[in-house]
Structure formats: structure tokens, C-alpha cells
């Protein structure tokens, strides 16, 4: 067996150990350690990605000496590996670019605990990406729930405490529903590993009694994970959660944590329920409609927001709607578009959340639009890194946002019928609304207010990760075919 096949297991166990280790270090050492270890992790997952692309097939990794239906398993295919690379890369950029604000927002005695919680979160992200066992998915989903409240609450102001309480209650409801779904599936199949579970489900679906349980279990799993990721009627926790957290946490929560839940859901649809059975279920159409509603209502809320962070957070709700619309369209094309949008949005939104506090810093520490006038001129660097992802969010060609919208439209065209018309109409409306609020913001921050202010210069710790994220964004826009082929290869390995 090739040594590279051990890397998924290493990435989880090493992250767990790093989380524990960071509590023993001082704040500064914990930061340096976290950065170094995440670089190592990035190299490892990139090696796994290259390995799966070169060999052209997925591999499973038995944890311990007991094989498939008895022990736990990890699985690495192209799709898992590319999602893992994305997660680690964005996490590294967020840690690098937000370290200034970590020093500022968090009490000195708790900085090491902050990095410990971030590392445990990395472990949970990795485990949920690689897992081939639905109950391991639940265990690490618990860690992700707790850590996401931890990184929020660490700022210790009234708003984050309030937001964390709301976020935790909704998250726990989601976890409970997810567990209920897993229990129902376990009860009828007698398995927890994905492959034997899917085999049982394919047989049970013929039986009308078991079909009721299956549809109910899938529905409960879907509701649980969509509450956690913030689909339309459940998106009201987003603005407070993302808007008031320290920038690193905001970026990580919006671009990684909610995406990880969606990725787990996609994995369950393909590898537990089976994509043919899922296509047959009515849940798909519900997701489609809720996704469309989210696209419109998220954007409408974003237009009404008075505060730049709330606007960006509500725009996240709209983007989650895009992803669920792709899942609702179904077929490989729809899912490919959804996963491409997960990647595009993760790269873009983290950049926006890491930049807004810099704009606020030159506007009297206020995030309100009325105080932000001309801030991009006072801080041209941050202005540029707000401009580029904004253009991507609107969907200007050569950026990733344009490609993902194109993929959604193409997937809808494959499907045809009433869904095509709905997708086209709502996509146009949503893009228009996106353009409305981002253009308004851009005009506001580039309108000169008073010329006397001196300009702010940034250090490399901000510029390097931002440049990397921008380059990734451009690459995904310009070479979108390569990424789509990668994702398509990953989905073909899923069966």
C-alpha cells in the first residue's frame, strides 16, 4: 500500500492532537504552530488529491484491523480531496489574514484556546470530509457544532454572546434531527458504513413500508443539515453570527463550516441513499423551491442592511440558496454546479469577511454604511480586495462567480421544462439584486469624503493570503472547465 494512503487518517489525528497541544502553548507560540502545521496539512491533502487524480480511482482506508462493515473507514476520492484542499487552504488564509484582529479582539490569556478550538475545528472538517461512515460523521458534526460556537463566543462582547446562544440552539436542533435520521436508517439497514448501507437501502426501497421510513429519514437528515447550513427559512441566525465574530471566525464559519454540512449532505445523497433513489424522492423539489426562495429573500435582506457585515452575511444566505438550487436540479450537472459554487463561494466570501474590518478600521471602527464613505480611498489595498470578490459575487466574467452561474444555467438547460424557466428567471433576478447592493457599496466606499486623510499600508500577513485567494478566484473563473472535470471525476468515483 502506498504511504500516501495514510494521509487522510494523519490529517484527522494530527489536527486533534494539535488542538490539545495548543492549550499547553502560549498564545504566540500557538499561532506560529498552527500556521506551520496547517502548511504541512495542506501539503498532505494536496498530495492525496494528486494521487487520486493520477490513479483515477478512490481508495478506502480501514481504521484499525477490522474491515468494512465492522470497523470505521475513511474514503478518499477526487471530490473529497479537492474539498479538503479547499478547506485547509481557506483556513490557512483566514488564520494568516486575521491574526491582527485575533490579537485585538481576544483577551491575551485566551488566544491559545482560540487556536486550539480552530485546530479541533480543522479536525472535524477533515473527518467529515473523509468519512465513509455515517456515525463518524455525526460525532465530528458535534465537534464542529461546539467549535463553531467557541470561535464565535471568544470575542466576548454582548453581540457575539447573544448570537452564539441563538446559533447554538438552532445548531442543536439540527444535530438532533440528524441523529434521529441516522437512527432511523440504522434501524432498517443494521449498518452504519456507507457502502453496505446503500446496498441494503437499494433493496429496501422496493418495499412500500420501508420506503416510508427511508423518505422520512432522508427528510429529517436534510432538514437537520439545512438548518445548520442556513437554508432559506432558517437563515436568520446568519447576520449576527457572521457579522460580529472576529474576522477569522467569520470567514471560517461562513465559507467552511456551513459548506461542510452541505458536503456531508451531498455525500449522504450519493453514497448512502443512492443518487437514483434520491432523484426519485420528492425532497429534491422542496430543496429546489427553498433554494430559489433563499436566493431572492437573502438578497432582499442584504439590500435592507445598514451595516456592511450584515449585508455580506445576508448575501451568504443567498449563495447557500444557489447551492441548494443546484442540488434540487439533480443529475451530475446540478451537483457539479453546486460543488463548484461551494468552492467559488468559500474563496470569495472569506475574502470579503477578512476585508470589511480593515475598511471599518479607517472609518472610526464603524461598520455602518454612512461612516464607510471613501474608506477604499483611505485604504486602497483593502478597497481592492473588497472590489475583486464583489465583482465575483455579482458574476462578472473571468471571476469564479460567473462560471458557477453559468454552470447552474447549463444544468437547468439539461433539465428543461418548468425548472429551466424558474432557474433562468430567479438567477437573473438574484444577479440583479446582487449587483444592486454590491455596486451601491462599491460606489459608497469609492466616493471621496475628505481628502486630508493619510493612506494606510498593510503588512504581508494580510496581502499574501488575500492575493492567494484572489488568484484562486481568477483561476476558477478562467479555467472553470478543469475544475468542473475534476468534480465530475469525483462524482463518477462516488458510485
Amino acid at each position, binding site marked *: *500500500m502506498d504511504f500516501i*494512503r*495514510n494521509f487522510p*487518517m*494523519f490529517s484527522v*489525528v494530527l489536527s*486533534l*492532537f494539535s*488542538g*490539545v497541544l495548543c*492549550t*499547553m502553548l502560549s498564545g504566540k507560540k500557538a499561532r506560529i504552530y498552527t500556521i506551520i502545521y496547517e502548511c504541512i496539512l495542506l501539503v498532505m491533502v494536496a498530495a492525496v488529491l494528486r494521487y487520486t487524480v493520477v490513479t483515477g480511482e478512490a481508495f478506502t482506508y*480501514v*481504521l*484499525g*484491523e*477490522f474491515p468494512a*462493515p*465492522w*470497523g*470505521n473507514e475513511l474514503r478518499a476520492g477526487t471530490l473529497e480531496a479537492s474539498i479538503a484542499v479547499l478547506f485547509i487552504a481557506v483556513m490557512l488564509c483566514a488564520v494568516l489574514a486575521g491574526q491582527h484582529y485575533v490579537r*485585538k479582539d481576544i*483577551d491575551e490569556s*485566551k488566544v491559545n484556546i482560540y487556536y*486550539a*478550538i480552530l485546530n*479541533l475545528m480543522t479536525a472535524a472538517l477533515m473527518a467529515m470530509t473523509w468519512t465513509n*461512515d455515517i456515525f*463518524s460523521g455525526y*460525532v465530528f458534526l*458535534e*465537534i464542529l457544532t*461546539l467549535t463553531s*460556537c*467557541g470561535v464565535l*463566543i471568544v*470575542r*466576548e*462582547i*454582548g453581540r*457575539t*454572546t*447573544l448570537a452564539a446562544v441563538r446559533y447554538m440552539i438552532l445548531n442543536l436542533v439540527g444535530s438532533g434531527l440528524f441523529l434521529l435520521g441516522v437512527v*432511523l436508517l440504522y*434501524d432498517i*439497514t*443494521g449498518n*452504519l458504513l456507507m457502502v*453496505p448501507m446503500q446496498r*441494503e437501502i437499494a433493496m429496501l426501497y422496493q418495499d412500500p*413500508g420501508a420506503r*416510508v421510513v427511508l423518505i422520512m*429519514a432522508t427528510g429529517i437528515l436534510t432538514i437537520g443539515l439545512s438548518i445548520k447550513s442556513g437554508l432559506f427559512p432558517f437563515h*436568520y*441566525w446568519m*447576520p449576527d453570527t457572521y457579522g460580529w465574530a472576529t474576522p477569522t471566525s467569520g470567514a471560517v464559519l461562513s465559507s467552511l463550516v456551513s459548506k461542510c454540512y452541505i458536503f456531508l449532505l451531498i455525500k449522504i445523497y450519493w453514497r448512502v441513499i443512492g443518487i437514483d433513489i434520491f432523484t426519485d424522492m420528492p425532497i429534491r423539489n422542496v430543496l429546489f423551491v427553498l433554494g430559489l426562495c433563499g436566493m431572492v429573500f437573502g438578497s432582499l435582506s442584504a439590500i435592507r442592511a*445598514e*451595516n456592511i457585515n450584515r449585508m455580506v452575511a445576508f448575501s451568504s444566505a443567498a449563495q447557500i440558496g444557489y447551492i441548494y438550487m443546484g442540488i434540487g436540479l439533480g443529475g451530475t450537472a446540478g451537483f457539479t454546479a453546486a460543488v463548484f459554487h461551494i468552492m467559488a463561494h468559500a474563496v470569495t466570501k472569506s475574502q470579503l469577511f477578512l476585508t470589511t474590518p480593515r475598511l471599518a478600521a479607517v472609518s472610526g*471602527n464603524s*461598520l455602518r454604511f454612512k461612516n464607510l464613505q471613501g474608506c477604499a480611498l483611505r485604504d486602497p489595498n483593502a478597497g481592492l480586495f473588497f472590489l475583486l470578490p464583489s465583482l465575483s459575487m455579482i458574476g462578472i466574467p473571468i471571476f469564479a462567480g460567473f462560471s458557477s452561474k453559468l454552470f447552474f444555467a447549463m444544468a437547468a438547460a439539461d433539465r428543461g421544462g418548468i425548472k429551466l424557466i424558474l432557474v433562468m428567471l430567479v438567477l437573473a433576478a438574484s444577479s440583479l439584486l446582487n449587483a444592486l447592493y454590491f455596486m451601491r457599496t462599491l460606489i459608497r466606499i469609492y466616493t471621496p469624503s475628505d481628502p486630508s486623510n493619510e493612506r494606510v499600508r498593510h503588512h504581508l500577513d494580510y496581502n499574501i493570503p488575500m492575493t492567494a485567494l484572489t488568484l484562486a478566484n481568477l483561476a476558477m473563473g478562467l479555467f472553470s472547465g478543469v475544475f468542473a472535470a475534476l468534480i465530475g471525476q469525483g462524482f463518477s468515483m462516488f458510485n
Partner: protein
Amino acid sequence: MKIFDLNFDVEEEPIPDGEDHDLLENIMDGEEVHDSPREKVKTEKEYYRNYVRSTQWVQKLILTENRGFNVFYFSVAVVSCVLLIGMLLFTISYLPRYGVENPESILVVKRYVENGLQETGAVNIISGIILDYRAFDTLGESHVLFTALMCVTVLLRRDSKNMRTQYEDFYTIRDEKYHELYRESIMKFVAAVLLPCLLLYGAYVLLNGQISPGGGFSGGAVLGSGLIICAAAFGFRSTDRVITRKTANLIAFFSLGFYSFAKGYVFFTGANGLENHIPKGTPGAILSGGLILPLDIAVGLVVATTMFGFYSLFRRGSIGGNK
């Protein structure tokens, strides 16, 4: 009455002008507050005056809100709960009956029951399953506890932003004094009798996880409750001699670090088809079950520390002595 505030845009409501609300606004917005919000308050009296006024303002805000929405919200909540319960009951009627299993779905359980003893070396099959067959899940589960402890620490441990009032300090100090003065209370007598039994029983449950029902999680919980009773009866001064902030950190670090490395080693050797050189021991003896005993001890220590940590953080805002 309003249970859940769906309208999260409170900050966009017109906030009445006046100096009284500056403090609340600043604390809530976090725009100005980079240092301690406490430093802006001159006296305790002023702080409580501000607090009372701000709650009055919030109450007024709630009362003036739309009543129709609240009625709508209540009815939707009730209807959706009833719907969910009904659908779940409907689903349960289709689940397989107890005792009637299809032969393929009990394939997994069958091997656990039949071969569990010789494959894991543990008489207690539950321990064998959670610490050997499905060790990866338990590896995550023990870190869930640690994560929870870290989150509570972030929330409750005192620092420059999270300070206590003089009143709270007064009560903590008064409690400690009380424990010093009244040595002969009923609580102390009962605790003195109970504590040795509790610790002994905790250690027994912890060490016999591979032989009899019990193991790391339950044994650790008993040990942790022993520590909590000790702290409640004899004051934190007694537990501070054993568990300080540093020892709590060290216990968590060494237990979980050992856990990660031991299991990482087993995963590595198992997946690569190597010999792992861990003796299984004679089933039924105390030294049996391969790694199950040391892992149980590690988990038990983490659980005990976590439980005591929660209690200590909630009561006085730190694990180990006040700085």
C-alpha cells in the same frame, strides 16, 4: 409574550437618545469596546442603574411590537411540532418489529457478539465495540468533551473582558470563609464518609471496563462527581491542592495525546497490514483487552477533569486557584 426573537434587526430600531444607553449600546455593538467595558463604569451602583434602565427599555420595545406576529408565530410553532410528532409516530409504525430481523441487517451485530471476545480480548463487549471495533468514533467523542471544556473556559474564565462584580466576589469569598469556620456541618460529615467510597468505586468502574459494565466515561463521571462533592463540602481550597489550572491542562494533554498516538498507531498498523505488537492478555483478567484499559484510564481522567472543570468554572470562573 415573546419566546423567540425572530426579528434580529434590533440594532436598526430607533434607539432613544440619552447618556443612559451609551453603555449598553457600546457593549452590544463592540465598536468602541476593545478594552474592558467595566473600565467605563465608575461604580457598581452606576452599573446596576444602567442595567435596570436598559432592561426597562428592552421590555418597552418588546411590548410595543406587533402582537399579531406573536400569535402567528405561536400557532406555526405548535402546528409544526404536532406535525413532526405525528409524522414520526407514523414512521415508527413501519419500523421492523422487535425480535423480527432480516438476516442481512444483523450481520454486523452477529460478529460483535460471537467473535468479540477473541478479537478484542474484552469480556465486556460494549468496551470492545467502542474502543476497538469503532475506535475512531470514540476518539472523536472524547475530544467532544475536551472541546466543550474549552468552549466553557472561553465563556466563563475570568479575564480583562469578563470580570466579576464585587458582589459576586463577595459571595465567593464568603462561601470560602464559611467552609473554614463551620467545620462540623452535616455536609462535611456526609462527604467525609462518602468521598472515599466514591473515589474507590470510580476507580473500580474505570479499571474494570474490559471485564464488567463500566469503562472510561462512566468511571470518569463518578470520579468527577467525587471531586465536585469534595469542592462543595470542603471548599475549593481542598481541591486546589490536587487540581490546579496547570495540572488540569497536563492531565488533558497527556491523556488525549496518548489516546491520539495509541490509536493513530493502531490505525496505521491495521490499515497497512503490519503487526501491532499489543498483547491481548487473558480474557477476564484485569490486564486484558489490549489497549482498552489504558484508553479507559485516559478517557476517565479527561471526563473527571472536564466535569470538575465545568463546576469550577461556573462557580468561580477558573479551574484551580484564583489568580
